[in-house]
């Protein structure tokens, strides 16, 4: 048997990565283009980053997006976690199967339909569309993702821990905050981050739920692109990519470090008498 990757492995991995990253790479490269024309290279420049910062409409949209994402992700995390706890903990109650099925529905529902139904509801209730309706809409659809992430952690959670806490005199509510929550916290944080990113890059649902004065960054980019792509948009997108990449790297490095430290400690404990 030959060691190392075969030519087939090399080709398939190269093709795969080119397929995934070439468009992103092009975008990053052209964000440093001197020329106004997106497709013609005219030398290196960082001027579009300066332009981007001076573009008030773009900055406003970015600020709205971040606020929407922070708010909706936080509310969705609370609601999603509560939902997950109820579905995994409270045993059998009438309609449990229906509820646990329904929590997955928005995951597979087309965004257009979700957005349209939210719009209809906001109109029916008489809610003025704007910043808060976008927050509400994003909370609604990201909540399910949080619930699914937290639920998968809770299923593996050792219920003895909660019983032990109660046995030692801790009432149920306090047990949740002292024992359950700290242990499932990584899943809750992961759920929050998922909700945050989903809200950050959502275009369809936000377009339905929004009103005057509440334009999110994806909406802004989309409307500008329709008038013609400017290198400014490339610059904004590059900044977004950098932020997301840094976030992912930090998250994976910390979890990896924790895992390594834990394994080392366990090996040492096993070796001790």
């Amino acid at each position, binding site marked *: 048997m030959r060691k190392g990757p075969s030519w087939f492995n090399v080709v398939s991995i190269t093709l795969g990565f080119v397929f995934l990253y070439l468009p992103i790479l092009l975008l990053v490269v052209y964000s440093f283009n001197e020329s106004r024309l997106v497709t013609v290279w005219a030398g290196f420049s960082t001027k579009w980053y300066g332009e981007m910062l001076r573009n008030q409409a773009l900055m406003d949209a970015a600020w709205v997006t971040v606020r929407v994402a922070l708010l909706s992700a936080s509310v969705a995390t609370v609601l999603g976690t509560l939902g997950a706890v109820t579905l995994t903990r409270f045993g059998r109650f009438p309609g449990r199967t229906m509820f646990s099925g329904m929590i997955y529905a928005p995951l597979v529902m087309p965004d257009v339909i979700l957005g349209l139904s939210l719009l209809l509801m906001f109109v029916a209730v008489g809610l003025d569309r704007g910043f808060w309706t976008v927050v509400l809409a994003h909370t609604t659809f990201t909540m399910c993702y949080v619930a699914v992430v937290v639920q998968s952690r809770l299923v593996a959670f*050792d219920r003895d*821990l909660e019983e032990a806490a*109660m*046995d030692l*005199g801790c009432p149920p509510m*306090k047990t949740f905050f002292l024992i359950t929550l700290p*242990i499932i916290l990584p899943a809750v944080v992961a759920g929050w981050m998922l909700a945050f990113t989903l809200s950050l890059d959502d275009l369809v649902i936000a377009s339905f739920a929004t009103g005057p004065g509440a334009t999110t960054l994806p909406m802004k980019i989309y409307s500008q692109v329709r008038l013609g792509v400017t290198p400014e948009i490339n610059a904004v997108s590059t900044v977004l990519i950098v932020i997301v990449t840094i976030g992912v790297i930090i998250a994976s490095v910390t979890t990896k470090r924790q895992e390594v430290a834990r394994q080392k*400690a366990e090996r040492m404990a096993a070796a001790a008498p």
Partner: protein
Amino acid sequence: MGQKTLGPVRRSFAPWLDPQAKPLIRFENVTKRFGDFVAVDDLSIDIYEREFFALLGPSGCGKTTLLRMLAGFETPTEGRILLDGKDVSRVPPYRRPVNMMFQSYALFPHMSVEANIAFGLKQDGMPKADIAARVEEMLKLVKLEQFAKRRPHQLSGGQRQRVALARSLAKRPRVLLLDEPLGALDKKLREATQFELTDLQQELGMTFVIVTHDQEEAMTVADRIAVMDHGKMVQVATPSEIYEQPASRYVADFIGDINMIEGRIEASGEGRTRFRSEALGLTADVLDATPIGVGETSWLAIRPEKVSVSHEPPADTSVNAVEGEVWDIGYLGDVSIYHVRLAGGKTIKATRANVTRLIERPITWDDKVWLSWSPDAALVLAA
């Protein structure tokens, strides 16, 4: 530890024989159903202060459910549970003066050993200085002083087990419940820990209730053992009574090894019973009065270590004897088990201690041998 001095006191410890004694825990006609499944079936039992009480039975016999009802994790469907004379059937676990040590240990992974032990004390609102003192005392008790700052995953299995024990003892509960506490330890460590547990229980003067499926563990630690089967209490007695005077074939079979011979009562009276098995051509005298009527089907039960094997028939004619052939020998090091086939085809097991280092045994395969036992070695069981 203090066990040697407490020994004589221990021997006289039998509050269950004293009609004046008040039980600490009383199960009154307790039934627990999960849907159609009856986990505990109309069960009543008294457990006394300072007693080490073992619930023993195969998995699914209801012993864990009984323990969980005592801890408050389950409520009885019918009946009452009294603790110190007060009905606690519906008191939630966090308001009961009862603590439990879990089979999985259930140590809080995000807290240090210290914080784990202090957890219950904090819930009671104990002053900080008192908590620190109690935690230190507990760490000393389980000999883990130098591990106070460690997290549970930095400890070995035996150390975790001791942290779990310390945590459940820290609040000085009225009753300590132990759910298969030694199940995860290897055999040597388990045996050592069994003795530590009994020492600890006597030192602290506390009431322990242990659930186990390991009969040796129950016999080692407990003052009394309750053998359970299908949610019912089959027999409650001291370890030696359970072993020597099992109430039924189920108990006799569950605890240790036993030979069971089917037959009939031929005669009984004056504290003696004559047993006859036509199939094996065996007549045996048993020094035991039996309520079983003459002619009724019954079983002669005899433990392998009480049967002697020899080439010659016993000289003493008052001893029961039967002839057979050595079918198989199981060498276990300390003892050898002889499987002797009788004329009727039934195999009887007899153990012999290997008292010399000779590899060549005087009795070997296919030898014609005599099995014998004295009338006080066997007993007669009805069902």
